[in-house]
């Protein structure tokens, strides 16, 4: 009532009355950010003046952990990088090891790997694109395509027994041959998915609301994208046709015919369209791989791993009956295989960019140093530049269309 109560108020922070902008804390666990992302956003009304990202909430010290593990035990770590497409990370790791160890994989193994990798790419792009849909207010697409991700996960399950963190494949090949169910499911996927993808595409690509929300938002020029070391669909959306599968083919990608979809403006819409185009290309690659697999005859048609007893676990029945297999089994499991001295950098085209492995071996049993080049860690730093001056709701769409995966970001 009296003036006295007014004078006893809690003092406000210095300058907060004069301040013209609002500071808002978005995340780390915000329903609109898909993963553990924190952004401290400076807002003028609804327009973003500045933003600062905080990363590292789920850092798990992968690079340190890898320094005490034999090569085959590092694979489960790579699962947990980009967990939307674990098989890609696994294969990237296997091919890195094979490069260091000088292992030549049989063609059939390469083609099987290509199938799994392209399925993983589809699964990843599927999530990313449908999440962009969710963030622009179209939930239907997300729920609709989810059943085909489920089908992809079932294929993983047939091949390796697990679904999300797959630990698929081994150094030199696969742990077991693909069974008939796996092939049936791949064929089912190839038959049914194009129809669904077409429908999904129709829902979005010419949708007025979707186009208005995504065109011109979160744009980056090719020059800036290169300066920020962008890779993958985000770089291609800006118009640079860099793809590791073409630039430095691994796993026999040189045997396949496919196009690299590129965009022009590097905005959210182009990123969406590039991913969409890549899904069609992946489908065609899987089809080609299936045709190539059908050409293997006789004993060749059953090859699913390279002959590298030092690194590839022998079959269990041999372990019980043959001395040599028992020895290798023991040595591999106990991590007692010394690897050659050397350092390699090997990259694969991950679902969101160039996924690189820099592996240094000092001739010991575990990597001396292993560094992951994680594409989304590198391009996430451009986020403030992408959203400055945009509306807050556009920033949300931009974040999902960049395909940021917290597991990969934080290593």
């Amino acid at each position: 009532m009296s003036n006295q109560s007014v004078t006893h108020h809690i003092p406000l922070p210095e300058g907060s009355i004069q301040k013209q902008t609002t500071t808002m804390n978005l995340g780390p666990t915000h329903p609109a950010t898909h993963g553990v992302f924190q952004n401290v956003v400076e807002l003028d009304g609804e327009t973003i003046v500045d933003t600062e990202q905080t990363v590292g909430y789920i850092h798990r010290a992968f690079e340190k952990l890898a320094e005490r593990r034999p090569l085959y035990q590092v694979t489960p770590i790579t699962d947990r990088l980009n967990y939307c497409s674990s098989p890609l990370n696994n294969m990237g790791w296997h091919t890195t090891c094979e490069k260091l160890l000088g292992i030549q994989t049989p063609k059939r193994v390469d083609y099987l790997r290509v199938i799994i990798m392209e399925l993983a790419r589809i699964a990843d792009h599927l999530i990313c694109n449908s999440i962009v849909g969710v963030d622009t207010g179209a939930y239907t697409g997300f729920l609709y395509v989810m059943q085909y991700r489920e089908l992809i996960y079932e294929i993983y399950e047939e091949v390796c027994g697990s679904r999300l963190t797959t630990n698929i494949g081994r150094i030199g090949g696969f742990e077991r041959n693909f069974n008939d169910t796996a092939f049936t499911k791949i064929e089912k996927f190839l038959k049914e998915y194009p129809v669904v993808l077409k429908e999904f595409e129709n829902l979005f690509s010419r949708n007025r609301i979707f186009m208005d929300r995504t065109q011109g938002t979160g744009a980056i020029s090719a020059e800036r994208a290169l300066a920020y070391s962008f890779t993958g669909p985000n770089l291609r959306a800006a118009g640079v046709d860099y793809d590791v599968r073409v630039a430095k083919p691994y796993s026999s990608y040189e045997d396949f015919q496919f196009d690299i979809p590129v965009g022009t403006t590097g905005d959210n819409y182009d990123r969406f369209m590039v991913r969409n185009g890549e899904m069609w290309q992946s489908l065609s690659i899987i089809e080609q791989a299936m045709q190539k697999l059908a050409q293997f005859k006789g004993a060749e048609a059953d090859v699913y791993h390279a002959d590298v007893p030092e690194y590839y676990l022998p079959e269990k029945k041999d372990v019980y009956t043959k001395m040599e297999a028992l020895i290798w089994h023991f040595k591999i499991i106990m991590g007692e295989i010394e690897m050659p001295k050397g350092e390699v950098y090997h990259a694969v085209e991950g679902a969101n960019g160039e996924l690189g492995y820099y592996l240094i071996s000092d001739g010991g049993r575990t990597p001396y140093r292993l560094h992951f080049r994680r594409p989304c860690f590198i391009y996430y730093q451009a986020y403030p530049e992408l959203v400055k001056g945009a509306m807050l709701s556009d920033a949300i769409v931009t974040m999902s269309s960049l395909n940021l995966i917290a597991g990969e970001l934080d290593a």
Partner: protein
Amino acid sequence: MGLTYETIQEKLNDKFGADNLQWENTYDQLTVTAPKELNLKILQFLFEDETLAFRFLTDICAVHYPDNTGAELAVVYHLHNLVANVRLRMKVFTAIEKPDVYTATSIFPGANWMERETYDFYGINFVGHPKLKRILNVDEMDYFPLRKEYPLEDQSRIDKDDEMFGRGGSYN
């Protein structure tokens, strides 16, 4: 087009002196080791030269060699000429007591977080970096965890109550 390792080697040797640079070609990857004072100049030259044109920074990371007295820490740059599709690895070594290396952020904006990560784990002080602070670890951390003097926990230790994780307690 057709940028060969010989050309790179020749050009850099001419510009910076063959005595300053060590060359190595392992696993089909050319690697140059340079004095740390020259890192920025070499990166700049590699970027600006029309034939070399290493304008894409793939990666920066560090390695710790505790036995390499006086040059314990290595900073490794992976560069890529996207047009000619050639990669180049560059290493600079620095003493652990004074791990100062010039930042590459002026040439590659993307080096910003890569260098912060490297600082975070190895304590490389990137001189001139706009905002050199920890990125993945907590700000209060007072050591650099990927250095070799911090070994991983001994897996056979039994003094810790880790029953939830299948170690210690009734598991022994």
